[in-house]
């Protein structure tokens, strides 16, 4: 039931939305500003986009970001989906502990997760050096870190997607002569699929967005876009970073609108 909203409430809501969009608008506007120093307007230009595309470090960081995001999403979607299915299917004696384990990466501050992985990798490295093996922090350490925080999101999304269905669905399939694999691929998986897709999308976005954990897990020779943005911001603002930010905002908007259009009709079925 829809009740009348008070004009003051509407005004407040629009103020909050203005607050949310002000920085994004400013970023986009200043990415077209023909001045090295962002504070004053010196005319319209698209040159910063050219400067941005000419930067090798940006292209490299973009490639890293996408590689990590795609691969970690793939791994965490498989592992997380299996955990979500297990949570749904079995009555577990250790369910509370398992829920706690899954909630942990979501609630523990990311700086804690980042530094603990940094120390863990150093600890493992020291152990392996005694065996004559060695590794540097970089692609693999970041990949493992991303999968670790993604698994929970996928598992919990899949589990809540299946929450409305009972185990009798699988039993019915078995009674009708399906094998275990058939009942899984033809009954359970199609039901879970929207949850799996939503979880994968969430995992992918989290990977693209992550700065803190990547920063600690990556070492000095490897950066993703968020890490690159951080180093640039710390060094002093350059207008081509405005252009990069504006582009990332654009990508986000397109991705969310697309995901919304893709997922909504299925979610309602």
């Amino acid at each position, binding site marked *: 039931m*829809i009740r009348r*909203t008070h004009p003051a*409430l509407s005004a*407040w*809501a629009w103020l*909050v*939305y203005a607050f*949310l969009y002000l*920085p*994004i608008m*400013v*970023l986009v506007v200043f990415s077209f500003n023909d001045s090295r120093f*962002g*504070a004053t307007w010196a005319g319209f230009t698209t040159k910063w986009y050219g400067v941005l595309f000419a930067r090798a470090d940006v292209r490299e960081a973009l490639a890293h970001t996408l590689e990590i995001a795609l691969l970690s999403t793939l791994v965490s979607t498989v592992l997380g989906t*299996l*955990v979500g*299915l*297990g*949570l749904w*299917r*079995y009555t*577990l004696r250790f369910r509370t502990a398992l*829920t*706690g*384990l899954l*909630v942990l990466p979501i*609630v*523990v*501050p*990311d*700086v*804690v*997760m980042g*530094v*603990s*992985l940094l*120390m*863990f990798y150093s600890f493992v490295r020291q152990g392996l050096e005694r065996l004559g093996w060695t590794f540097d922090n970089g692609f693999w350490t970041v990949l493992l870190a991303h*999968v*670790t925080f993604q*698994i929970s*999101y996928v598992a*919990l999304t899949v589990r809540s997607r299946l929450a409305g269905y009972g185990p009798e669905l699988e039993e019915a399939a078995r009674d009708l002569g399906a094998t275990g694999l058939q009942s899984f691929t033809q009954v359970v998986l199609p039901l879970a699929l929207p949850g799996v897709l939503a979880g994968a999308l969430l995992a992918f976005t989290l990977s*693209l*967005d992550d*700065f*803190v954990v990547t920063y600690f897990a990556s070492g000095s020779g490897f950066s993703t876009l*968020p890490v690159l*943005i*951080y180093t640039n*911001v710390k060094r002093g*603002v350059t207008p081509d970073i405005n252009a990069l*930010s504006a582009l*990332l905002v654009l990508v*986000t908007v397109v*991705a*969310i*609108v697309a995901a*919304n259009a893709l997922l*909504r009709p299925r979610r309602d079925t």
Partner: protein
Amino acid sequence: MLTVRRFFATLGPGVLWLAAFLIVPALVMLGYSFLTRTDLAQVGTPWTLESWGRVFGYDALFQEWTGDNVRVLWRSVWVATLSTALCVLMGYPLAFYIARQDARRKNLLLLLLIIPFWTNFLIRVYAWILILRPFDLVPSLTATLLGMVYAFVPFFVLPVYSSVEKIDWRLLEAAEDLGATPARAFMTAVFPQTLPGLVAGILLTFIPALGTFVVSDILGGAKTALVGNLIQNQFGQAGDWPYGSALSFLLMGAVLLGLWAYARVAGQKGLEELV
């Protein structure tokens, strides 16, 4: 029934992964917090409680209590509380506004809320430099607070919104019919129904606000360092891993204690709904 074979076919790989890359690193971190810093970013024996002493303000070198750290911890709690309060002020009414629109508008408004939320965190914080610099507000505590509220307000609105969606408005009508003033009717018939979302929203705002180092690092400067910055510094310039470990453990402990208390009140279902 969950047999060993089925465990390894479903829950097993994920659980083992989390054990290996979440629990083991936490244990390594706990171990490091009792070690001594030998060289820059190097740790070794003897095992000592020195880092833990420093966390609580005792300086083993000068054998005296210093307030420095305690001040940083206190400031972190205070800043997180204040930014959470501002999020409540901004977000609570907004959740009502969104929930009362028709389905089409509701979807659009939620989408508009989620877009900044899913836009890269660093970019969102960085954008405030552009806005606040002309006012000479970077770096400052005000800028940090503003950045935090900006970054975390969507975290707050979403759970409150889902609570408001479920409100049984007939209770409000009943209260009004029985002669309650609008304020009293709201407080007795509506507010309690939003409590689960409110508590979840406060937790989801307070915890990242307590742990962040990015916002205060970019917008706050050295004078307004929070516990997150203190931790980051131990793994960067200061190169004191044992001390950084102890601080991280304290932060994690505080968060887990809060969640445990929340789970006691809200139950397992509440904990699952939080995420």
